């Protein structure tokens, strides 16, 4: 394999472009990502491409490599960003809210729930609404509608996802604030207590929306076996949730 030739091939360049477009919505970020990945592949006389030993398919290797560079790029991007001083002085909880809403485009309501789960905020919801006023006024390049959030009483950027195929997500979605926080804690604790393989299976299928077939391959199971195992695991989650008095409303 000639790494220089490989890097100039349209196939690899299209792969890089596709991955960057898939990971970033802003055109500027996509372009920066593209350049970052190309530079990363060229670095040290194509060291990353030369590291390929032929143990996996070249195609999968290239995607893993591009994604590794994209993950690094994203971290650098986030690392460069600064939470506005006016927000930072309010404390860690406010920084977290800013990150969630401005950078990750969640709603303030979602941010409140996440804060409660993480134990970063103990106040009531009414209190929270009052205390986020200065955060709402902070500038946010990544999310221009940030300042107008909740102005209408609705969450403008309510991140409604397709939850139908994900029973745990579906349940969490339907719960009210208090029970949602409780359910998240139960699910997190139940997941942490699972055997390593099952943890990864649940993470891939219910945390990252991977197909059962793809997750089964990673775990080293047949897709049908993985499907049965997931059913068994869902029963376990259900039992734990019921034990905490959480049921579907």
């Amino acid at each position, binding site marked *: 394999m000639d790494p220089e030739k490989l890097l100039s091939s349209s196939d690899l360049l299209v*792969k890089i472009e*596709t*991955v960057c477009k*898939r*990971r970033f919505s802003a055109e500027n970020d996509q372009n920066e990502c593209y350049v970052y990945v190309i530079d990363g592949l060229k670095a040290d006389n194509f060291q*990353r491409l030369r*590291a*390929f*030993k032929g*143990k*996996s*398919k070249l*195609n*999968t*290797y290239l*995607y*893993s*490599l*591009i*994604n*590794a560079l*994209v*993950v690094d790029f994203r971290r650098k991007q986030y690392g460069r960003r600064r939470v506005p001083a006016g927000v930072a002085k309010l404390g860690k909880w406010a920084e977290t809210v800013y990150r969630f809403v401005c950078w990750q485009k*969640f709603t303030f309501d*979602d941010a409140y729930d*996440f804060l409660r*789960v993480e134990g970063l905020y103990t106040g009531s919801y009414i209190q929270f609404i009052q205390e986020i006023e200065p955060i709402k006024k902070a500038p946010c390049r990544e999310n221009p509608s940030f300042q107008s959030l909740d102005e209408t009483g609705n969450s403008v950027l309510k*991140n409604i*996802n397709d*939850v139908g195929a*994900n029973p*745990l*997500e579906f349940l*969490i*979605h339907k719960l009210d604030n208090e029970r*949602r926080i409780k359910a*998240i804690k139960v*699910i*997190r604790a139940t*997941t942490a207590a699972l055997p*390593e*393989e099952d*943890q*990864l299976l*649940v*993470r*891939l299928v*219910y*945390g*990252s*929306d*991977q*197909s059962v077939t*793809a*997750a089964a*391959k*990673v*775990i*080293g199971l047949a897709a049908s076996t993985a499907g049965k195992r997931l059913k068994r695991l869902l029963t376990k989650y259900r039992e734990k949730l019921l034990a905490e008095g959480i049921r579907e409303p």
Partner: protein
Amino acid sequence: MGKWMNKTINPSVVPESEDHILIEDLARLAEGAVDAAERQHLIGHLNRCQRCYQILQETLVDVSAEASMQPVSVPWWKTRMFYALAVSIVLVLLIGGPLAIKHWIQSPPVIVASLDLDQTLKDILLEDDALRWEKKERINRLLIALQQRGLEVKDLNLVLLSKPYYQKKSLFGPKEVLHIRIENEVAYLEVKEKD
């Protein structure tokens, strides 16, 4: 992606070691090409390292997206085209079958036409005054003349003229029309003056 579950059960952001999984090992894991002991080790790391987990899960997304965009090679008899063709043939047989049978059972269609009597047709008619044409050569000349004028006649065995045809003297006389009726490869001809 389910935002709640994603936030709830993704690997925690505990300080990560610098000792990440090699890219090629992640690729092998995505392909399911690792042995049991190695897999156990890699899975243990993935449950604790957000970076490696992210690379793996994004690789799975990209590989599967690429695979879904590539045309899958399937045997020709399993292709859509084949099924569409098979269905088309069945439909043609179902719909067209009875019509074809009817067509075969029925007698050949009768052709009726009226043609302006031009010089070529006149020459054929004037060849002799027989009302029943039996000379194959003359019949063929008429057949070709009719075909050239757009009549879909395949063959003629006999031509019957209603009355003998004679050339009109007047240069500006009334135009003449040849009325033709063809049935069972027999042509019935009649010349009439045009109104």
